């Protein structure tokens, strides 16, 4: 297991290094081709070329890209992501609160979508072609088809704005504020305020994923329910809950966990639409304005952080999968051969 983890961590480091190198090079290619100048942006439009040159020197932009990249790498090793060109604050100081917001959003949403997906998928698998299964299949199809940039504002409108105007799904109610239309309350300020400010964002982000995961859970469970070992378990008198928890769950869990790791990792990079719609100061929004302002250190910081999160989530998922399924760690990276041997 130790060798497995070490191998995954080395691979993860290389992935992060490659991502940052590509991001750095892209910026410099764009600058070289278009003449776009972060120093000009920082110096303001009243600045003379001499002043722009001085700002470039101050920002360290007058050195070759590879030396800037090396400086960045050395900084990262020391936990220093450099200074934002635009805000002149340490990137880490800007990054950490934003990462906290995005983590709150994504982790909360992931819990929510799993809480929805597992029962919906299991009931669908246990009662295939029943009324419940057909209704949930339609709901799943709608949820998958509804883009988050539509779901999010509709939730804000229907559950935050309309109740404040005395309406709820067409019914007249006393004006009430269930949820803020936008805004984020840090957990340090108020736990209940934090949860209330994130309820609609969690829901907006979870709807689509819940539908996908409900499908996976249903399909995987249905497949396993047809296996002979389930028939044997049933013949021995095992109840359905016992079959699900003891026999089927350990088999389908690694696949679901792997998917979850990928999705959470990718979403941690910034759930831009949800963050924009609900005014959450997370990584996605930060990356967007950093790119617009040619704020290389902040952009690279966000990209590096997002890559780290994605790789970390994948690694955790791999390790979890390896823990649950010994074939993965025994395989030593040659999964098919191991699978064949075990079969």
């Amino acid at each position, binding site marked *: 297991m130790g060798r497995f983890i070490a191998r995954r961590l080395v691979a993860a480091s290389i992935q992060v290094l490659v991502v940052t190198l590509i991001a750095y090079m892209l910026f410099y290619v764009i600058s070289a081709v278009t003449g776009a100048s972060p120093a000009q942006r920082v110096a303001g439009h009243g600045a003379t070329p001499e*002043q722009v040159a001085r700002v470039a020197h101050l920002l360290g932009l007058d050195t070759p890209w590879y030396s800037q990249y090396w400086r960045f790498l050395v900084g990262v090793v020391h936990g220093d992501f450099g200074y934002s060109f635009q805000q002149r604050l340490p990137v880490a100081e800007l990054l950490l609160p934003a990462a906290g917001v995005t983590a709150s959003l994504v982790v909360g949403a992931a819990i929510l979508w799993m809480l929805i997906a597992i029962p919906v998928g299991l009931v669908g698998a246990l009662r295939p072609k029943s009324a419940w299964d057909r209704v949930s299949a339609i709901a799943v199809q709608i949820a998958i088809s509804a883009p988050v940039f539509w779901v999010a504002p509709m939730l804000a409108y229907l559950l935050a704005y309309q109740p404040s105007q005395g309406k709820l799904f067409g019914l007249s109610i006393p004006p009430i504020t269930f949820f803020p239309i*936008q805004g984020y309350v840090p957990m340090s300020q108020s736990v209940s305020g934090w949860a209330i400010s994130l309820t609609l964002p969690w829901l907006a982000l979870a709807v689509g994923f819940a539908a996908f995961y409900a499908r996976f859970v249903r399909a995987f469970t249905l497949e396993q329910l047809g296996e002979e070992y389930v028939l044997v378990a049933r013949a021995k008198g095992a109840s359905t809950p016992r079959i699900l928890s003891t026999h089927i769950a350990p088999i389908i869990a690694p696949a679901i966990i792997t998917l979850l790791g990928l999705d959470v990792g990718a979403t941690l990079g910034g759930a831009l639409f949800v963050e924009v719609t609900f005014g959450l100061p997370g990584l996605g929004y930060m990356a967007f304005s950093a790119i617009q302002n040619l704020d290389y250190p902040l952009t690279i910081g966000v990209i590096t952080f997002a890559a780290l999160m994605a790789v970390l989530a994948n690694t955790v998922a791999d390790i979890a999968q390896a823990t649950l399924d010994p074939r993965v760690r025994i395989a030593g990276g040659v999964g098919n051969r191991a699978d064949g041997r075990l079969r």
Partner: protein
Amino acid sequence: MSLSFSQNTRRRVTYGAVIVGVAALLAGCSGSSPAPADSGATTAAGSPSASSNSAGAAAPAVAGGAATIGLPAGGIDHLEPTLWYMATSWEVAFATCTPMLTFPDEAANPGAQVVGGIADLPVMSDGGKTYTFTLRPGIKFSNGNAITAEDVKYTWLRMLSPELASPGAGFFSNIVGASDFNAGKAKTVPGISTSGNSITFKLDKPIGSFLYRMTMPFACPVPTGTPMSAVEDGSILGSGPYIVQSYTPNQQMVLVKNPYYNADALGARGKLDTITIQIGVDANAAGLQIRAGQMATYMDRLASADASTALQDPTLKGQVFVGTLPSTTYLWLNNSVAPFDNPKVRQAINYAIDRDSLLRVWGGPSQGSVTDQVLPPTMSGWQKADIYPSKGDVAKAKELLQASGVTLPITATLRVRNDAAGYVNLAEAVQAQLAEVGINVKIESAPDSVNQGFITVPANKIPMGISTWTQDYPDPDDFFGPLLDGNRITPTSNNNYASFNSSSANTQIEAMDAVTGPDRSTQWNAIDQQVMTEDAPWAPLINPNLVSLVAKGTCGYVFHPVYALDLTTLGMCG
């Protein structure tokens, strides 16, 4: 300002309109038509003129209370006064800082008249090359310490220092020794000296707009000994009616009353006890929040769809305001590239453009007004010129093109930003209109940061483009100097995108440095009309508007002609 309201908002509208526009539209109701904006004035929706502002949210507020105000993400670029430059940051600056000179808390032209700040209006001598300011007695920083002339001198040295690399330094390069100090070649600025409670600035030549430049918040007073590095937590902003109680970048800022603000010396300012600025509010959702009473108002532009529905909603009468921004959106024509080096071609383009149609593309009368002048109507003493017909005159355009001797069709590239609402649409409309007179336009669009890289380098010889310029201070030399003075064309970082370099115009523009008093605006108006009639280096298109919505129960809304939202006048209704 480096990032105008429109620039600041556009990036949000660009993608935000897709994201939340549906909710904004759902919130709309049918009702009366929007009223057109008066020149340079603020107009309440459904009202014919600025005079109706006495009702609704424009009624004076009472003192006390607290309010939450929305601000888009990235709306605060800095709280370090030598560095802040965004229009929305300067709204905070107007509440937290009292510069040497400032502006009254009033709408329209009265709000653009320079008045004393921490100093009285200065005594000018030496033919406009020396300005002596006397500090007002009894003024203090928020820590209770008196603001002295030495503090003011230190503030200026800090702003001009190479360590801070302030974008404000360029506006004061005519102070004797300032350029050398800023370049790190000198240890002090001989042009700034103090004596008792007075401070003197010596210039290397008269600068007619010097008083306006002294209002800029770059030189917000800071105590002697403030670090020569950026202080971004707001702790050094101690001279305005409000101070920053707390600031979490990209999340929230809380302003409270400055206990040492001397209202007797500086004038009574500030109604609310506490102002919470919620950062990261999307323009598209801001309207819903204001309607729901979760926010008093928004410090930036509402999304155009939301602005339109708000303007047509009779239940919001007296709560919606349309203010003209101190900006001009223009089609610049590269005067150094054939055939745009021919004034008749440039005049023909000005005739070929149907500005009324372009305004519809831009969002209609609520979003701006058409213009054929360089200067926006917010400029003091501005006079409407009517140089070119707003509906265009294609026959006249064709006649001028024929007289120019150029061979048709002309093919030219037009560069425009694509990360802000309206610009590409404008470019496409211009493309269609110019095609009618035999000018084939090829549009190249890119995000602003990339587009600027192309158009600020004259050697790239970009034939034409659409850009917006927003004033740094309300004097015409902030338009004519950087945009049209050929002697200020630089090989990089050039703002004269049209590469307009007319020796007679250069002489006229530079001669204005020596002109002060009422003649100044009269002469600038004459230059504006003459340049646009004879040289036509651009085709000015639109002066953009800012549509604001104010929540019920909030009063004291003032659309300030320099800073837009005046936080100090906002408060609860009586």
